[in-house]
């Protein structure tokens, strides 16, 4: 039996919860078909999380690709299909991937498995950072460096904590309605590994408190820099990312297991903590950096 999972029209970190909700009751060895035929848009979170979903299935899943040519064209430019073809049985028309010099794809969907992948991500993004981050988002070159540091640290978290590989993608957008039409750059890094709670438990076991769970594990790691390593130098990566996001009025969210924590700027109405979400392995991270206004 194949269970059909309906992919939302617009796929981002919030609407993806609809997919997690549909997946939760389905055993991992059961065949699923993700029906994205009516999907018109996907954020980096949407694309990287879709690949992550496939990694959680024991039976190779199927994916019906979007029917809209401009959507599939973008997904191809973002290298989504290049990786999806290895994970999904693809149905529908997949355009040939073309690189465009006008593309606002800052970093195509890229696997993060080994240390050298982090070097590749950093080297690749630096090549395009000047055009997109500095010219479009009016970020100074020093901010571009800090942005890349944040990206590096988040990718390393996958390698060190997930126990499996993950995916990263970066995209710049111009928001039509929010933030007065400002441009933003969005990073997403998703994996289907052990997640934050199990990572902490691997060193110290569960905390002796009724509150212990995915939400508390996220609070400890993201907000307080706790890590499973004894080395006191550990835990600085996420702390540094959080500091950079705060200084730059950005947004930072991490979903792991059944909880999601967010550092929320004043321009967004997201909830700082959500618990009781549909369970999903690993960690899914999103960072949003808004354009710096000239008078800011």
């Amino acid at each position, binding site marked *: 039996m194949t269970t059909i999972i309906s992919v939302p029209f617009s796929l981002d970190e919030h609407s993806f919860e609809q997919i997690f909700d549909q997946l939760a009751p389905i055993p991992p060895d059961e065949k699923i078909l993700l029906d994205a035929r009516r999907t018109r848009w996907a954020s980096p979170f949407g694309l990287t999380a879709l690949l992550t979903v496939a990694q959680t299935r024991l039976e190779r899943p199927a994916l019906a690709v979007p029917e809209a040519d401009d959507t599939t064209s973008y997904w191809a430019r973002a290298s989504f299909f290049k990786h999806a073809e290895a994970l999904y049985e693809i149905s529908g028309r997949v355009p040939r991937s073309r690189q465009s010099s006008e593309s606002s794809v800052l970093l195509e969907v890229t696997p993060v498995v080994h240390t*050298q992948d982090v070097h590749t991500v950093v080297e690749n993004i630096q090549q395009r950072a000047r055009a997109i981050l500095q010219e479009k988002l009016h970020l100074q070159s020093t901010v571009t460096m800090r942005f890349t*540091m944040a990206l590096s640290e988040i990718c*390393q978290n996958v390698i060190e904590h997930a126990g499996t590989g993950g995916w990263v993608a970066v995209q710049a957008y111009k928001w039509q309605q929010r933030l007065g039409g400002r441009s933003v750059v969005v990073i997403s890094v998703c994996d289907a590994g052990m997640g934050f709670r199990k990572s902490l438990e691997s060193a110290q076991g569960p905390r002796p408190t009724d509150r212990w769970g995915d939400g508390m594990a996220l609070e400890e790691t993201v907000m307080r820099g706790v890590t499973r390593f004894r080395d006191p130098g550990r835990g*600085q990566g996420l*702390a*540094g990312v959080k500091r950079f996001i705060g200084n730059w009025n950005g947004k930072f969210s991490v979903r792991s297991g059944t909880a999601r924590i967010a550092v929320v700027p004043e321009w967004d109405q997201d909830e700082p903590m959500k618990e009781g979400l549909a369970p999903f392995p690993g960690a899914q991270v999103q960072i949003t950096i808004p354009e710096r206004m000239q008078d800011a």
Partner: protein
Amino acid sequence: MISHIDVSTVLKRSVCDLYSNLVTRPTGAAVRIGIEHHLDEIGDKALAVLDFSHVGLLDFSCADEIVAKLLMQYVSVDIPRREVYFIFYGMNESHMDAIEAVLERHDLAMVTQLAGCDAQLTGCVDREQRTAWEKICELGSVLPADLADATGMPADKAERTLETLWRRRLVIRQESGYSPVRGANVGRGLLDGPGTPGGTGVEAS
């Protein structure tokens, strides 16, 4: 002995000659080990100028592996490996973000020098240590009595402060007194250019 170590060259030799960014812990550990090998060859008392001028990005993990762990071996133990003083040279603003974060985390301090600028004290030092360090830079070389006279510190406190700065390898202790750790005058010729292409990244004078 003064040793100039081009960190970018050590990266290329230790990890991959295509890399210009100091990112990830394994990369940082490999570069630190490369630097330690150079330090093993430069004698029991030396000044090492670690040149970051040609490093692209330095992330927090790499800063922890290279800067913090290197300093902890040479300045934060009762019996350090050898009497090695460091000047961290040529960092940019984003390098300093990562470095300052790890110094704070480990309660460390170091001497930094940006191109064309005077040496600075960076990291965790108390007010008295900073005052003493700045006075030493101003006077060139001091004995405890000189510091006490110049700052109004009690003599025993001046002596303790200088000893602490020396133990932290923020000043050099010599028979003639305590001198500032700085590289501009002693290493100008070494600091002006990158390491020899294809070389070890280490020059000594």
